[in-house]
């Protein structure tokens, strides 16, 4: 695992970013669920489940890291009681593992929803070796899985050239950039901040698209 450098002033802010991103993700899931409800198509189900899982994973890491930060601010550096340190470490580790597993499944489902129906069966053999590559490369794997959605969003924007498709393209690209930047957090603290800003901006871009869709629906 790489060491993650987090600026002290950013302690807790990242948790807020995760929770806000998760809430927006659940809003996207709600629309995706309505889409699936109308069509009943499998690819729409994958898309819906993908966003539900992504939102759940962000909420998990948001809450787990909040718990860690609250304990840090209450008890200071990990030099206090061993039982407290153990509990905080357990909750934090557990939260991260859940986040890793559910996020990868979510990105897999989102990528699957973009695949043509005939090629969906190819997906599992591709995913298995990726899975066993392990979690140290979680951010690179996530970026790799998300890159297919980014590619499709770029294609969609180039053919549509409207603001909604631009917002989705920006959203996927920024979420992809978040994972890419997180891989390099051992080099500088500012990269950690930039990565999380990128994540939040990505989800805010999705929120802007949702607001436009819900306003212009009529």
């Amino acid at each position: 695992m790489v060491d993650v450098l987090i600026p002290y002033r950013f302690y807790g802010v990242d948790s807020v970013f995760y929770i806000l991103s998760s809430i927006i993700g659940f809003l996207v899931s709600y629309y995706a669920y309505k889409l699936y409800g109308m069509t009943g198509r499998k690819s729409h189900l994958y898309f819906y489940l993908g966003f539900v899982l992504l939102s759940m994973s962000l909420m998990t890491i948001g809450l787990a890291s909040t718990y860690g930060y609250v304990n840090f601010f209450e008890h200071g550096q990990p030099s206090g009681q061993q039982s407290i340190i153990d509990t905080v470490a357990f909750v934090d580790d557990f939260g991260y593992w859940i986040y890793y597993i559910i996020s990868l499944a979510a990105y897999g489902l989102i990528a699957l929803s973009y695949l043509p129906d005939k090629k969906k069966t190819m997906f599992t053999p591709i995913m298995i070796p990726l899975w066993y590559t392990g979690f140290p490369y979680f951010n690179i794997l996530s970026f790799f899985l998300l890159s297919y959605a980014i590619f499709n969003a770029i294609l969609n924007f180039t053919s549509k050239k409207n603001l909604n498709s631009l917002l989705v393209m920006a959203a996927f690209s920024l979420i992809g950039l978040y994972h890419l930047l997180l891989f390099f957090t051992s080099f500088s603290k500012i990269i950690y901040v930039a990565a999380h800003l990128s994540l939040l901006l990505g989800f805010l871009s999705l929120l802007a698209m949702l607001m436009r869709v819900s306003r212009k629906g009529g």
Partner: protein
Amino acid sequence: MNPRRSKIHIYVDILKLINRKNGRAKPTHILYGANLSHIRLKKYLAQLLENGFIQRISEDGHTYYIVTQKGYEFLHEFKKIEQFSEAFGIFV
């Protein structure tokens, strides 16, 4: 572009067509406007009636179909979902 319309698109086409005809249309107008065979039209009209999206009325010895409030709400919802799916490049 998908040459085969999905069921949902056929529903929307029929509802939009009735709406364009001042909110009421004869079955023959729907038949030609929605570009459906007689058998398929009967099937879809029955489904729209069952869902409460349209209503059948008789006037001057003619049968007309009108869009219900639920039908307009469905059209409104469809427009939102269509825009949502188009933004992602996944089509309804």
